[in-house]
C-alpha cells in the first residue's frame, strides 16, 4: 500500500516543504493541499504544518481554522482519519476544536528556538506508535506562542486518559502547563505538538532522526486499518 498523506499549505505556512519531505523519506506519497481546497483529494491522513498562517492575525491559528480546507479535515478527523498538527498546525487544531486547550504567549515572552528533549508519554496514538512509552527524543522547538494551557479539569482528564503524548523533559521551558508539548484526541487519531519532528528526520539536517517516527507511526496505523 502506498499511503497518501496530505500536507496543507495556508498563506504564511513555512514548514510544509519539510513535512512533505519527511513523508517521502518515510516511504509515503506527500499530497499538497491548498487552504482553499474544498476536499482532501482522497488522502489517507493529513499533516497541518507549522508557520504563521494568515500572519497570526487575531490569534495564532484562528483564521486558518476557518479556511475552506479545514471543513473536510474536521469531518474526516471526526470519522477517525489521522491528523497531525505541528506548531502552528497544533494551534490551528486547537482553534478548530479538534484538540482541547489553547496555545498562548511563552512565559517570559521569549521566542524559543532550540533543540529540546521530549518524553514520549503515550506510544499508542496514530502518530506515536513507532516510539516506546518513556522514550526520549530530540527535536527542534521554534515558537513564541507555545505555552499549552487548559483549565484544571481538562488537564486532569487528559492525564487520566493518557492523552498527553509528548512532554518537555526540561521543566518550565516555555511555561506550558504540566510541561505539555503535545496532546491527542480521545480516539488517539488526532495529535498536536509544538516541537517540530519534521525538522529531525536525518542527521545531516537535524539534531537527530528521531522525528521520522511520527510519520512511520501513521504509516503503521494506516496499514493496520487497511488490513
Amino acid at each position, binding site marked *: 500500500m502506498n499511503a497518501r498523506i496530505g500536507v496543507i499549505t495556508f498563506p504564511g505556512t513555512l514548514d510544509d516543504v519539510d513535512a512533505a519531505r519527511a513523508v517521502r523519506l518515510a516511504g509515503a506519497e506527500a499530497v499538497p493541499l491548498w487552504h482553499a481546497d474544498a476536499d482532501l483529494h482522497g488522502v489517507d491522513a493529513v499533516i497541518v504544518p507549522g508557520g504563521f498562517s494568515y500572519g497570526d492575525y*487575531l*490569534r495564532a491559528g*484562528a483564521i486558518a481554522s*476557518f479556511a475552506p480546507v479545514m471543513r473536510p479535515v474536521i469531518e474526516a478527523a471526526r470519522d477517525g482519519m489521522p491528523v497531525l498538527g505541528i506548531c502552528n498546525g497544533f494551534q490551528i487544531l*486547537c*482553534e478548530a476544536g479538534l484538540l*482541547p*486547550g*489553547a496555545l*498562548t*504567549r*511563552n*512565559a*517570559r*515572552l521569549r521566542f524559543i528556538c532550540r533543540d529540546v528533549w521530549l518524553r514520549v508519554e503515550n506510544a499508542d496514538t496514530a502518530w506515536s506508535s513507532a516510539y516506546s512509552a518513556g522514550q526520549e527524543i530530540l527535536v527542534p522547538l521554534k515558537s513564541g506562542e507555545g*505555552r499549552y*494551557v*487548559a*483549565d484544571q479539569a481538562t488537564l486532569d482528564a487528559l492525564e487520566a486518559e493518557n492523552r498527553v503524548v509528548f512532554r518537555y523533559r526540561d521543566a518550565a521551558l516555555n*511555561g506550558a502547563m504540566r510541561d505539555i508539548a503535545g496532546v491527542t484526541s480521545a480516539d488517539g487519531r488526532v495529535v498536536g505538538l509544538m516541537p517540530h519532528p519534521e525538522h529531525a528526520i536525518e542527521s545531516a539536517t537535524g539534531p537527530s532522526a528521531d522525528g521520522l517516527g511520527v510519520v512511520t507511526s501513521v504509516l503503521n496505523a494506516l496499514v493496520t486499518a487497511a488490513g
Partner: protein
Amino acid sequence: MARVVVDVMPKPEILDPQGQAVAGALPRLGFDGVREVRQGKHFELELDDGVDDETVHQIAATLLANPVIEDWRITRVPESSSSETA
C-alpha cells in the same frame, strides 16, 4: 446602524505575560503605584439594525475570542442621534 464594542480579555486564571511586561516597564519609566496590568483586545463593530446581542455573542465566541482562554464583554455605543430611534 449600530456601533458595538467587544472587549476581549484573558481569563483571570490565564497568565498574561504581555500585561506583566507592561507592568514591569512602568516603574522604570517613573510611574509608580500600578499593581497589575492585563492586556486584551478591543473590537469596534458597525452593525446593521436588527443584529441582536445574541448574534454578537456568537460572533465573539466563534471568532473574536477563544473561549478556552478569553472572556468578552459587549457594549452598545449610543449614537448622538440614536435616542429618537432606539
